[in-house]
């Protein structure tokens, strides 16, 4: 077969094109070094130390500077960071962590097991909210060598629970900076020193925080970015304006208004989604003060639940962002989600019947009784739900008054003074029910502890289930125990989880390699770059 000139031309062209295409695609995959990522910071934290303050508001900044023992990988499994491997004894009371070699703090000193020992015993156990509870049975941390830390517990600690929780509650800070000082007044709380890909540079209160690339980071050739700037913008409209004018490239954890997220979704310059934030689910709650005579009757509580048209609320007030909840464990937590239907669907007739059955008839003006609702203002949707509940219960003959307090006043009114009939706020699920969820139901929390059982309700059966599950080492058995627990609490309904929601982030499409793990916004961003 003779190659015609045309054949030659065509094949050369094809080869050239293929080559060029290969170059192009590899050019697109090639991360660009340098550049500054500007991030929205909606509010300021008093203390920027993740070893004593567990909060997404802290992680958004400090997790790029300070690192934890583990993080989560793209599938939500534990990813070795400062700990390279782990092992638990069969009785669950000893967990051994092997630590990473060749890691240095930003001030040059080496990272060793002594730092882990100090942080765990002095900070996590004594100061860290949720950490004190997680580590309450931690009695000692041994350091047989400079890269091994052995955790000794007096009660069995399920390893999956510990690892999942350590992603948030396992940050390590330098012993030589904190030992012997007044922990709460240590200046490193506002100028964090860590082992992470970025070094702290400056914190201008009310304005911005700046962190720069760490040239001695243990992950060689990372990070890609030169600088990260967090801009303090408290006002939501100002923040979305800043995103649109390019002053910031990222706003996460639902810091913009729902309406703006809805609008920005249609803007091709941004990605607006819950991708990469699956680890932090939350519910809108409806909390009952069971001490109130009317609310002590479970039929009344169920009637109230039946009176709220949750799908309508989600569709019209949350722009469709969310779904009705089946309980406090969200569907994004496959390890524990028990499935099932929504326990109390919208059914006004059933609600009326339950109230009549409970003996609360309508008065001459149509009212059965009156209640006060206290919104605990974690987000803009809380007052919306409070109003919607007011409107819905009004149809049922229950007159509801909204008591408008700022958040300190609301927390104190509900959880300390018990001065409420209904309350609505957020419940945040942190990867495992034992971290911050079961405490909403278990009895025994002292007065004044927020987001705990202060409803005047308790159940021995539920307490027993919670305690058993917290120390159960078999993962399957644990899941079943929690499934039983959800069934029980849905029946008794001391509080009702109204919706199940994910946080939303708006990211400029110029940012690459973002939201690649379930808690990416609280991660270290070492492989993020800007095109």
């Amino acid at each position: 077969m003779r190659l015609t000139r045309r054949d030659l031309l065509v094949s050369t062209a094809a080869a050239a094109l293929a080559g060029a295409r290969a170059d192009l695609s590899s050019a697109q995959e090639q991360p660009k070094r340098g550049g500054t990522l500007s991030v929205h910071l909606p509010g300021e934290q008093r203390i920027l130390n993740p070893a004593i303050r567990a909060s997404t508001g802290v992680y958004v900044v400090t997790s790029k500077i300070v690192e934890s023992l583990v993080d989560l990988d793209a599938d939500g499994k534990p990813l070795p960071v400062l700990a390279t491997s782990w092992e638990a004894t069969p009785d669950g009371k000893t967990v051994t962590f092997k630590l990473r070699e060749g890691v240095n703090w930003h001030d040059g000193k080496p990272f060793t097991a002594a730092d882990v020992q100090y942080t765990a015993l002095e900070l996590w156990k004594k100061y860290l909210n949720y950490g004190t509870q997680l580590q309450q049975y931690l009695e000692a941390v041994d350091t047989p060598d400079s890269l091994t830390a052995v955790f000794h517990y007096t009660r069995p600690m399920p390893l999956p629970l510990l690892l999942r929780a350590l992603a948030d509650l396992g940050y390590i800070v330098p012993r030589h900076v904190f030992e012997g000082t007044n922990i709460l007044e240590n200046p490193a709380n506002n100028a964090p020193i860590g082992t992470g890909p970025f070094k702290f540079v400056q914190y201008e209160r009310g304005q911005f925080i700046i962190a720069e690339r760490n040239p001695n980071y243990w992950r060689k050739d990372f990070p890609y970015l030169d600088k990260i700037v967090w801009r303090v913008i408290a006002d939501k409209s100002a923040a979305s304006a800043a995103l649109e004018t390019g002053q910031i490239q990222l706003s996460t954890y639902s810091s913009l208004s729902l309406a703006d997220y809805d609008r920005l979704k249609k803007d091709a310059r941004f990605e607006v989604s819950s991708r990469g934030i699956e680890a932090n689910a939350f519910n809108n709650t409806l909390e009952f003060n069971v001490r109130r005579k009317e609310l002590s009757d479970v039929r009344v509580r169920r009637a109230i639940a039946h009176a709220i048209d949750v799908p309508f609320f989600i569709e019209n007030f949350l722009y469709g962002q969310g779904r009705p909840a089946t309980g406090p464990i969200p569907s994004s937590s496959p390890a524990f989600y028990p499935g099932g239907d929504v326990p109390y669907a919208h059914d006004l007739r059933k609600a009326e019947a339950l109230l009549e059955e409970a003996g609360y008839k309508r008065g001459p003006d149509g009212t059965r009784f009156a209640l006060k609702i206290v919104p605990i203002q974690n987000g803009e949707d809380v007052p919306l739900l409070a109003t919607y509940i007011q409107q819905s219960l009004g149809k049922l003959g229950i007159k509801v008054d909204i008591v408008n307090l700022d958040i300190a006043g609301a927390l104190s009114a509900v959880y300390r003074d018990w001065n409420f009939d209904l309350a609505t706020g957020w419940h945040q699920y942190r990867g495992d029910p034992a971290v911050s969820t079961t405490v909403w139901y278990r009895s025994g929390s002292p007065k004044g502890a927020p987001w705990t059982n202060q409803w005047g309700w308790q159940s021995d059966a539920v307490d027993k289930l919670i305690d058993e599950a917290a120390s159960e080492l078999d993962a399957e058995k644990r899941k079943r125990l929690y499934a039983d627990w959800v069934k029980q609490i849905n029946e008794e309904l001391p509080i009702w989880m109204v919706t199940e929601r994910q946080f939303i982030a708006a990211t400029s499409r110029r940012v690459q390699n973002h939201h690649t793990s379930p808690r990416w916004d609280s991660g270290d961003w070492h492989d993020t770059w800007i095109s």
Partner: protein
Amino acid sequence: MRFFLFAVRRLAASVPTLLLVLAGLFMLLQFAPGDTVDALVAQMGGGDSAMMDQLRKYYGLDATATVQLIRYLTRLVRLDLGFSAIYGKPVIDVILERLPTTLLLMASALSFAFAGGLALGVVAARRVNQWPDGVISTIGAIFYATPAFWLGLMGIIIFAVNLHWLPAGGIEEIGTGYTGLRRAVDIVWHLALPTATLGLIFLATYLRIMRASMLEVMTLDFVRTARAKGLAQGTVLRRHVLRNALLPMVTLVGLQAGTMLGGSVVVESVFALPGLGRLAYEAVVQRDLNTLLGIVFVSALLVICVNFLVDILYARLDPRIAN
């Protein structure tokens, strides 16, 4: 020397008032539901009671209200404003960081309002009951009636979001490291909308006062005499009328000094400016008593200073008062 003594005497006379204000506010805030630890825990998203008790002890909140007040006043006498619960820094540092922004905003808004009100008031008075007067007075009345936050929001929508002429918020571009003139220009550009918002509303008041004052003075005997002597309208205006008409304007500056700080709370919130107004709002919401009282203290000092300067200016303008 006499001047200095006068100043000190003035300051000393205000001390009992200041103490009354601070003590009163302190006791009032004791009745607010929730304290600074509740606000801190709210910010963190959770906390156990052992930690909260420890924090309460740390902040000195476990003592009775009277004891806390005495502690506060003893510190105040040494000019120690205490420690800010929100920022973990001495209150004086926090305030000094935020003071420049608020001073800048207030000074620019005040200058804009004063100058604009003066000029427009003169024009309106000279053309009283003719169409320039009507237009100016109407626009003035409308701006006076406009809620500041609404005006600010509309300004952002029009000038920042739609026209892209001005920034949507902040005091300057961060991370750019501008210095000197470039930085000053950047700050001016960022302060344009907030100043216009605050300024336009106060301008309406100054305009009205200036107009009324001018009209009042222009009917007085000595002005008619000056005109009868044959002096030109312009000279009469400048040499005789203006000086006297300025008096109520100057008094107004003193009266409004306190109001401006209140107005700046909302404007700073809308434009995300790091000033004292927003700091005060944060201090109330987070129950940071030390910071709030510190701000009141500083603002009271400011008001006293402004009123003092006003009195001096007044004496200069009206020689009858100087004695």
